[in-house]
């Protein structure tokens, strides 16, 4: 006898289930199909090409009227089922009651709307069905209209690309640090962002929407950081949630989705559910592959055949023309997991395989995804890859592959990319000289082009250019790599950051072919410094790549407490400052107070959670951070000079204060301590500082490259200047040169020894033009650096650093957020 099957939801899941059903048993069921949309089933995942204009709607229809008629399906499109009466086995809709023997729920999912003010304004839309697409296309007809897409996931980016293809000015807002964070790791996310931006789509990551603005329609989007973006439409594509209302109302078991067993049965065995509305083994899915697997099983169950759904491995491809991106499986790091990373900076390729027990468990690919399905097959088949492991990453076409070419990053550099910063020599000049003049040694290149002939920091790159041009005939000297994540040395990395205009840590890691996906505790702080030094005001400091002391602006002690040192300009203080310090010590029960070697006062043993309150009190007395923790300017130690001393020749205290006012807040490769002595008796001990000034009757002797730590070293005399203004100018230029050439954690004296005292002197003292350029760059950088970090944190920045997430140590156990 023919049974009555009622299907709620006419989307891709139920469409596929009906196909299987009719194929296996054409006459087993009388089918009634309800759908909320006023049309039959179409390939929803191909809506993006319709939006972009690459396909028409007709091309993506999977079941037309004839198909439904052939299979005698009673189509009730545009008619919503409002209730299921399980007692009487009927569904209720506008058209009355429809009885069922078996019921299939495939209601799919609904777009998630973020609850911000203005979310209900006309012009705010979601991206789910053809009606949404048509609404977007209507607005896109206005030339130059602005679209803001909230959500940088799969759906959001496809919407953005489609709207951009239709001529709209598109901005994508994404809450997380990189695009498609569920499918991509940061490296691939970086490549994707670069690609989209190069097409003219604006992308803002870590952008939190505060409100949507407008009166009778959308006008703009307001972000948490107060940025306002003009918008004619706002597309919300932040995620989906299972559409479960009908199931909940009728009393089926619903968690995040409608709970189903392996046979796709709900808690009522006569009711099945499939697709995005269900939850199977605690998993809710949003991709097409699992939904097809479920459809197959549901058809079998309806026919009384044994079949079981065991979950699905899923892979993702972004459907944006010209963007090749593939991800599958679990690509998180983990215990016992290993990764193979291939980066080809020249072609913008990134491939990463995550292995466990000699099996592929996840993969992320960008730029070249041709081998994606091959890897995915091995993943699904759980192939043992031990034998092919060495060449696995090169894909099926490659047997016996060689290691990635270390010169690829330099090869990818354009001819105008600058190699030698000291002498302004670019790649093209060097390559041409090597070829046309038959150069084959480093010294030849130095003699003919001047590249690498001054500070020598670009030596590694020049050698790579030699081997690139001459092939195996040239054997470059080994450069000490920065860390285990790369073959490049510090200098190479710095030069490439400038030459390739790399402006984020993921960008550096991709373009320089890092062999780990996220760096390590050695390279991340170094890269963070190089980027902040190279791109002042542009690069956003990565707090999580900083050592704890620079993250919380205090010095960690052996017991986990911190020490706090306020700045005392040139070592000068006052009764009110001292009184404020005394009050803070009493108020917060600070156990130790000590005078430092750099003429400051150190409060030791401050609890981390007290830091903001301690700083607030110190700030109130005019005291700011003394940066006693920083790879940056620490102190300028002075003597009392002509103010009081009978031997003083100049106002050494005044000069010290001026230098400190100029220098404070700057980040440097390693700490910088300075001193100014008012006469050659040198009470400020300036001749063992990183930079020291000895005042004499005729002016100022500027010293540098001293040390008084693990090494003890007297300074070298950089030179003599006549005026205080000149002294300050030279010191600014000197520090900037060190900032630009020093390797991370390399003190001034080591840098000076490496590049040569004479080279430094030439640039900062003898060449006024170069000195001035260095000074200008220092001043520019200082515009962005001179903000008191204590005041920022008193105002609430990074508040999470200073409070526990939860506290169960009290008698009443209570969770805090």
């Amino acid at each position, binding site marked *: 006898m023919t049974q009555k099957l009622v299907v709620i939801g006419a989307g891709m899941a139920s469409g596929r289930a009906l196909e299987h059903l009719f194929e296996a048993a054409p006459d087993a069921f009388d089918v009634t199909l309800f759908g909320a949309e006023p049309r039959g089933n179409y390939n929803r995942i191909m809506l993006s090409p319709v939006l972009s204009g690459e396909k028409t709607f007709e091309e993506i229809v999977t079941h037309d009227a004839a198909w439904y008629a052939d299979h005698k399906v009673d189509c009730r499109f545009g008619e919503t089922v409002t209730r299921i009466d399980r007692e009487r086995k009927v569904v209720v809709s506008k058209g009355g009651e429809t009885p069922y023997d078996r019921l299939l729920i495939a209601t799919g999912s609904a777009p998630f709307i973020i609850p911000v003010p203005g979310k209900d304004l006309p012009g705010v839309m979601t991206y789910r069905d053809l009606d949404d697409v048509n609404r977007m296309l209507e607005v896109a007809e206005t030339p130059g209209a602005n679209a803001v897409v909230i959500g940088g996931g799969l759906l959001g980016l496809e919407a953005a690309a489609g709207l951009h293809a239709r001529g709209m000015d598109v901005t994508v807002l994404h809450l997380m640090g990189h695009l498609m964070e569920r499918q991509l790791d940061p490296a691939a996310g970086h490549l994707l962002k670069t690609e989209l931006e190069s097409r003219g789509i604006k992308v803002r990551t870590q952008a939190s929407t505060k409100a949507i603005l407008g009166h009778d329609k959308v006008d703009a989007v307001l972000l948490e950081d107060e940025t306002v973006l003009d918008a004619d439409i706002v597309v919300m594509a932040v995620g989906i949630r299972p559409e479960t209302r009908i199931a909940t109302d009728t009393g089926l078991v619903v968690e995040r989705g409608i709970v189903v067993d392996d046979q796709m049965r709900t808690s009522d065995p006569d009711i099945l559910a499939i697709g995005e509305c269900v939850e199977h083994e605690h998993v809710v899915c949003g991709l097409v592959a699992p939904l097809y697997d479920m459809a197959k099983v549901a058809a079998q169950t309806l026919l009384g055949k044994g079949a079981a759904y065991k979950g699905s491995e899923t892979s993702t491809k972004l459907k944006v023309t010209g963007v090749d991106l593939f991800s599958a499986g679990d690509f998180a790091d*983990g215990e016992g997991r290993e990764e193979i990373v291939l980066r080809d900076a020249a072609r913008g390729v990134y491939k990463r395989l995550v292995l466990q027990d000699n099996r592929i468990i996840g993969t992320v690919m960008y730029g070249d995804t041709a081998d994606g399905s091959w890897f995915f097959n091995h993943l699904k088949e759980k192939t043992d890859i031990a034998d092919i492991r060495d060449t696995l990453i090169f894909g099926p076409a490659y047997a016996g592959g060689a290691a990635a070419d270390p010169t690829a990053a330099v090869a990818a550099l354009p001819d105008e990319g600058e190699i030698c910063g000291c002498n302004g020599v670019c790649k093209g000049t060097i390559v041409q000289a090597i070829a046309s003049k038959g150069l084959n040694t480093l010294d030849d290149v130095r003699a003919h082009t001047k590249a690498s002939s001054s500070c020598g920091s670009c030596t590694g790159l020049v050698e790579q250019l030699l081997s690139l041009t001459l092939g195996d005939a040239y054997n470059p000297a080994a450069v000490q790599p920065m860390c285990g994540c790369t073959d490049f040395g510090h200098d190479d990395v710095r030069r490439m950051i400038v030459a390739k205009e790399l402006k984020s840590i993921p960008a550096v890691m991709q373009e320089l072919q890092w062999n780990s996906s996220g760096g390590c505790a050695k390279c991340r702080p170094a890269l963070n410094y190089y980027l902040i030094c190279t791109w002042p005001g542009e690069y956003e400091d990565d707090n999580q*790549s900083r050592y*704890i002391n620079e993250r919380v602006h205090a010095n960690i002690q052996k017991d986990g407490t911190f020490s706090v040192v306020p700045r005392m300009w040139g070592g000068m203080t006052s009764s009110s400052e001292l009184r404020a310090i005394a009050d803070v010590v009493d108020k917060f029960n600070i156990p130790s107070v000590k005078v430092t070697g750099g003429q400051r006062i150190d409060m030791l043993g401050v609890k981390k959670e007290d830091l903001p309150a301690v700083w607030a009190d110190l700030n109130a007395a005019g005291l700011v951070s003394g940066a006693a923790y920083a790879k940056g300017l620490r102190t300028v130690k002075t003597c009392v000079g002509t103010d009081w001393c009978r031997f003083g020749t100049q106002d050494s205290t005044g000069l010290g204060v001026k230098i400190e006012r100029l220098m404070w807040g700057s980040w440097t490769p390693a700490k910088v301590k300075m001193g100014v002595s008012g006469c050659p008796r040198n009470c400020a001990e300036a001749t063992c500082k990183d930079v020291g000034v000895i005042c004499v009757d005729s002016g100022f002797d500027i010293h540098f490259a001293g040390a008084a730590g693990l090494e003890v070293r007297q300074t070298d005399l950089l030179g003599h200047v006549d005026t205080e203004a000149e002294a300050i100018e030279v010191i600014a230029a000197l520090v900037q040169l060190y900032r630009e050439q020093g390797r991370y954690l390399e003190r001034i004296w080591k840098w000076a020894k490496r590049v040569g005292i004479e080279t430094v002197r030439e640039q900062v003292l003898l060449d006024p033009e170069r000195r001035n350029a260095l000074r200008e760059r220092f001043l520019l950088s200082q515009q962005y650096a001179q903000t008191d970090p204590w005041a920022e944190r008193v105002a609430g920045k990074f508040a999470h650093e200073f409070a526990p997430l939860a506290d169960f140590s009290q008698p009443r156990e209570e*969770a805090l957020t």
Partner: protein
Amino acid sequence: MMAGKDQAWVDIGPLHAVPRQGARLVRTGAGCIALFRASDDRVFALDDRCPHQDGPLSQGIVHGHSVTCPLHNWVISLESGEAEGADEGSVRTYPVRVEDGRLLIDMAALGATKAA
């Protein structure tokens, strides 16, 4: 209160309250637990005490699924609590998971430590 092998998952806050590649503290009667969030959003809970000289691991730099202790640069696996490289030692780990964007920690495991 939470004896036996039963687990007792307690919500301790939203995932986003912990910065990526960072950590937050959970205080207990028996000391602090460091709750880490890696760049891939996996979370881990470990005693906030380096096996070397009790350094606060929560203050270290998080890279991959490891943390470098701020005091003497020991590298500790967030997964196993074992010291990596040539160093030897281990730190206790606790069950923690993320559900619907919320962090859940197993109070039973915390309680067991307290009793121990």
